[in-house]
């Protein structure tokens, strides 16, 4: 049993030594692999962040009432007070035309465009926060229909709608990311496989001699399998560094973006568990790539 471990340890270190002996080609392969892995990781983080951020949106069911242009500010305030007493409404907020304009200038960056206009085109808005006891789509829809019919209200919008659309988009993106990550995973397998094939070709003489002195295919395959492992593992580490670096770069603009849109800032990084899984998967893919090539090629290599 001890001998078994020693033989494997030897093969493990030998294969690492082989890669160090040809640093240039090893680095190139590892770089290509790590880009594939890092892309998968970044896609995953994208989905994770979006899911995380939109998770908070569930509680932000709002109804926005856009009042007609002809409605005076006084009428608007009266409408707001009236709605405040509604049994299904928790709170309301009136945004006057002037306030709306200020907010719009502040957040949109189109303030100058508005200044070109003679009058303020923005309508007065009443924001409605329904009671939290209203959870189903149907209940909210009922309230919406009721508010729509009020005099002075020109448009009533349930903000749930865009949350739902966003969620549908997220599901689509999740699927797409899964497909992309699988494709990139296959790329890792094929790239490692091809690299191992070249290594096998370069060491053909050695393989043939080992066979002639009685080496089993398993013995010959071992260092190549470990070689595949090293490619996957080292590429995984490089990919983790790339992902962390990129996220650090993106962190502050991302936070600014989420602050503007959602009112809070929080960017999710890869967790320790995520990183361990990424390393394990990339190492495994490397081994699988090497194994596939060895199965196909080893029996073909024969002493002439």
């Amino acid at each position: 049993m001890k001998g078994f471990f020693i033989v494997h340890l030897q093969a493990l270190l030998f294969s690492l030594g082989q890669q160090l002996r040809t640093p240039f080609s090893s680095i190139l392969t590892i770089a290509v692999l790590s880009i594939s892995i890092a892309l998968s990781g970044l896609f995953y983080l994208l989905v994770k962040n979006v899911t995380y951020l939109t998770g908070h949106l569930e509680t932000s069911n709002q109804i926005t009432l856009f009042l007609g242009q002809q409605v005076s500010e006084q009428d608007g305030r009266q409408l707001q007070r009236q709605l405040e007493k509604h049994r299904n409404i928790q709170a309301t907020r009136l945004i006057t035309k002037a306030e709306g304009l200020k907010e719009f200038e502040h957040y949109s960056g189109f303030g100058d465009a508005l200044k070109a206009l003679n009058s303020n085109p923005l309508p007065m808005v009443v924001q409605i926060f329904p009671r939290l006891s209203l959870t189903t789509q149907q209940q909210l829809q009922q309230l919406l229909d009721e508010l729509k019919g009020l005099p002075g209200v020109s448009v009533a919008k349930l903000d749930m709608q865009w949350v739902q659309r966003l969620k549908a988009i997220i599901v689509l993106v999740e699927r797409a990311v899964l497909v992309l990550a699988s494709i990139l995973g296959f790329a890792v397998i094929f790239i490692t496989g091809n690299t191992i094939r070249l290594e096998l070709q370069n060491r053909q003489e050695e393989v043939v001699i080992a066979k002639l002195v009685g080496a089993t295919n398993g013995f010959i395959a071992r260092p190549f399998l470990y070689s595949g492992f090293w490619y996957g593992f080292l590429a995984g580490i490089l990919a983790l560094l790339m992902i962390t670096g990129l996220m650090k770069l993106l962190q502050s603009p991302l936070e600014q973006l989420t602050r503007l849109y959602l009112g809070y800032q929080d960017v999710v990084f890869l967790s320790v568990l995520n990183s361990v899984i990424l390393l394990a998967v990339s190492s495994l893919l490397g081994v699988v790539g090497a194994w596939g090539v060895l199965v196909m090629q080893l029996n073909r290599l024969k002493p002439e």
Partner: protein
Amino acid sequence: MIKFDRVSKGYAEVSDALVNVSFTIGKGEMVFLTGRSGAGKSTLLKLIALVETVSRGQVFLDGQNLNRVSQREIPFIRRKIGLIFQDYKLLNDRTVADNIALPLLVAGYNHQDIKRRVRAVLDKVGLVGKEKSYPLSLSGGEQQRVGIARAVVNKPSLILADEPTGNLDPELSTEIICLFKQFKQVGVTVFVATHDLTQVVESGCRQLILDRGRLVSG
């Protein structure tokens, strides 16, 4: 030790490399296989080493029918055979000691055993002090002795040598043949293919002569 029973071997390009060859070599015998280049000497050795398979007939090694050996068993049968080549087939990026250790490494010997056996065999072939050298820094005769050391380090019961002295001058050739005789004396079967007839005559060993694939004397 070796038994050929009406063995024929044909390649696609050469219709008959071996035709109806039958002979037996006993345990501990030293036998030369001679004949012109292309007479089928290498093919015959390859059949024993399981590098090639017969077209017709049967080859027995130590009582085992080689026709019935599966791919899986081949490595284990090869461990019983020490192979020696005209071009030595050494790994030039490994030291002499590492080259010689290869069959032991392959067979899973532990580090201590490997060291001990390599030292012993270096002594036997007269290469003590060269273990850290690389093959290309050695002379042809020395390289062949490394090849022989590698072939015998695993204590095989059979040595197959394909033109082992083909690249060496007469003096070195005699040395190599002397080495083979020493192995024979300890009970190893030695089967040497060569076209160097003077060596064969001097040795006084049994001779099998191949001519265009047919055994004409033996």
